[in-house]
């Protein structure tokens, strides 16, 4: 092939242009650590990365949902624990009632009244502005207490409902750490303080105990109230166990979510990240080729027949 004056410069321009493009691409890869940045770099990898990042974002949100459930479950547990201690005290009074003298009974009745008020106060606990035990009527306090002029509790009304707000902890898997205060519907989650499936009705049973103490009806306390309060105690214990189970499930779900995020991160890295060692080696090779092209061209372009003519 005949080589002309422009063959070298043109070929050099082509070579330098393609070497520059390569250097630019490799430098970008080295600086960003990414093999794929734009859709045109690798459309298939881009698609996979977008899908995985979407999943990663969803799993991250599930983890945040789980943390929110955990917070709710912890708050619920604190309330159950306090209610349990009230139940214990009430149980002690019910057991001791038979041995008490008649004049001391109203004093214990007063104590039970305070226990009822304390229990209602706990049942009306709020978390982030929502009542914990109102079901989905979370803007309403679950219990409203009515007392007579002497401060004796005459009744409690449940304002909540039996519905729990479930939210996702994984795709398609919903859970609720909420517990309704009462559920006498016969279905759904068991009520914390009252559930007719197990004969639990803590506040009303406390009211009964209060009334029986006031009236000195020790027989009813021994025959009915003790057993009723025991059912309430059992119900609270059931909820302690249930809460523990939910917390444990949330913990393991959180761990699964974190594992999934780790593995997604690895997979995204595999698709999108550049092998820095390989990139730097290639960049060096390209730079060497670029310098070699410049140097050799400099020598060739600088000399012609003119150098040897006088």
């Amino acid at each position, binding site marked *: 092939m005949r080589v002309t004056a*422009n063959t070298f410069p043109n*070929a050099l321009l082509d070579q330098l242009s393609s070497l520059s493009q390569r250097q630019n691409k490799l430098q970008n890869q080295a600086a960003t650590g990414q093999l794929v940045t734009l859709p045109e770099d690798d459309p298939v990898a881009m698609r996979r*990365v977008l899908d995985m990042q979407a999943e990663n974002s969803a799993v991250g949100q599930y983890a945040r949902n789980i943390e929110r459930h955990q917070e709710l479950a912890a708050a619920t547990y604190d309330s159950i624990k306090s209610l349990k201690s009230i139940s214990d005290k009430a149980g002690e009074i019910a057991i001791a009632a038979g041995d008490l003298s008649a004049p001391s009974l109203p004093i214990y009745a007063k104590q039970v009244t305070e226990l009822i008020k304390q229990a209602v106060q706990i049942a009306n606990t709020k978390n982030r502005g929502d009542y914990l035990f109102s*079901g989905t009527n979370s803007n309403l306090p679950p219990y409203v207490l009515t007392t007579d002029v002497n401060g004796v509790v005459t009744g409690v009304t449940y304002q909540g409902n039996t519905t729990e707000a479930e939210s996702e902890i994984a795709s398609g898997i919903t859970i609720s750490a909420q517990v309704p205060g009462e559920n006498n519907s016969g279905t759904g989650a068991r009520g914390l303080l009252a559930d007719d499936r197990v004969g639990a009705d803590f506040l009303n049973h406390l009211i009964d105990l209060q009334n029986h103490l006031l009236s000195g009806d020790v027989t009813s306390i021994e025959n009915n109230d003790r057993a009723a309060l025991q059912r309430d105690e059992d119900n609270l214990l059931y909820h302690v166990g249930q809460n523990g189970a939910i917390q444990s499930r949330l913990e393991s779900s959180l761990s699964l979510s974190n594992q999934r995020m780790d593995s997604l991160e690895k997979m995204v890295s595999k698709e999108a990240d550049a092998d820095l060692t390989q990139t730097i080696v290639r960049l060096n090779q390209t730079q060497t080729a670029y310098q070699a092209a410049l140097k050799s061209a400099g020598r060739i372009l600088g000399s012609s027949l003119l150098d040897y003519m006088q």
Partner: protein
Amino acid sequence: MLGLFGTLSMANRSLQTQRNGTEVAGHNLANVNTPGYSRQRVAIETSITIPSDIGPQGTGADAVAIVQLRDKLLDKHIVSETSVRSAYEGRQRALEFAQAALGQAIDRQANGAEGSAAASGVGGQHGIAEDLSALFASFQSLSTNPTSSAERQVLVIKAQNLATQFNQVASRFDDLRGTLNESVSSDVDQANIALSDIAKLNDQIITAELGTDAKANDLRDVRQKRIEDLAKLVHIDTVENSNGGVDISIDGSQLVSGRNVLDTLEAYDAGGGQYLVRTLAGGTTLTLTGGTIQGTIDARDNDLVQIRSDIDNLATRLITSVNAVHANGYGLGGTTGEAFFTGTNASDIGFNQNLADDPSRIQASGVSGSVGDNTVVLQLAQLADAKQAGLGNQTFLENYGQTVSKLGQYLNGLNTQLGNQDIVEQMLLRQRDSVSGVSLDEEMTDLVKFQRAFEASARLITTVDEMLQTVVNLKR
């Protein structure tokens, strides 16, 4: 026999011939870097022989022509390949604009493992994909705390961000269509100038070559350059006539015939801002098969329309799906039946201003009066994983990923094709350079050769002069 005067005359012609050779070499040297220039050679032939007693006797040499070294077949190939390459380039440029308009990139350093900003506010990903994910994450968050005003406010911002992102992408694509139309118009103007230039050059070439065998080499070079300029814009068919003129046709419509421009091109709006090309006088719509104009039209009417329609379809499905669920819910104050998104496509999607003004109106609850109920917002959150029949049984994010990937594939394929075309064109240009390019070494050698021959011819004159002197001195 030539005799002394005949020899003197021969030496004189030889001087002229060698001088011609030097001039042509000088012309080549002067044009070593002129684009489109093809080297020239002086054609030297032995002069006529005359009979003599000792047989036919030579009378020296004459420069009979200045020949241009050009391979017409190569030229035709280059014109054709130039059109192919330019079409790719036109399409590539449009798709690169589209890639920028979509604004979807991966930035792994700015985004942490959970897709949250690890270096917030510095770079990062801000495409539709991230905004879609953020919207569904906000639905999820609200589902865990349906009465929270903070979560509702976050949802408002995320929904507004997504709507704005859709609007911006749609607007960029619309602007891009306008830019591409302007590019078609501008290219058509350039093509018309090239057509006019070619006709003028035809005129000059025909006039210069009229009644002679000599070729108007330099004018032909310039014309070839203009033909290649035109081929970059639009695929053309060329026919060279016996008088030296070149006729130009596009898609069967003859536009240049010898010295005359028969018709020119016109970019016209075929409806809906779709600029196409037709002949101005004839009104014939042209189906172009190469050149930047065709590449631009191709990208605009096929690739970009497809991407734009995918984005619109995604926005439409999102609006209808989210609104259908949201309408059944109840706000904290018991309001119901409100749309979440307004609009019908990517251009006009917006977040319902009523909800933005009062986020408590976001209808998260599925039961009137139960503010803690989250069934509706949970359904909205679960739309993220729902396969949509109108999106080819893909989720919103999968569908968007496919659109991004589709654009990437168009561009990636095109980059490869352009790379291959580069190789073809470089090979052809090298071949042409090998035939027509000026070699400094050759020209310098020629200069020396002609200079020496010139010196020798001059010496012949001196010698004959001395001989004549001798003859004249015989008389004394």
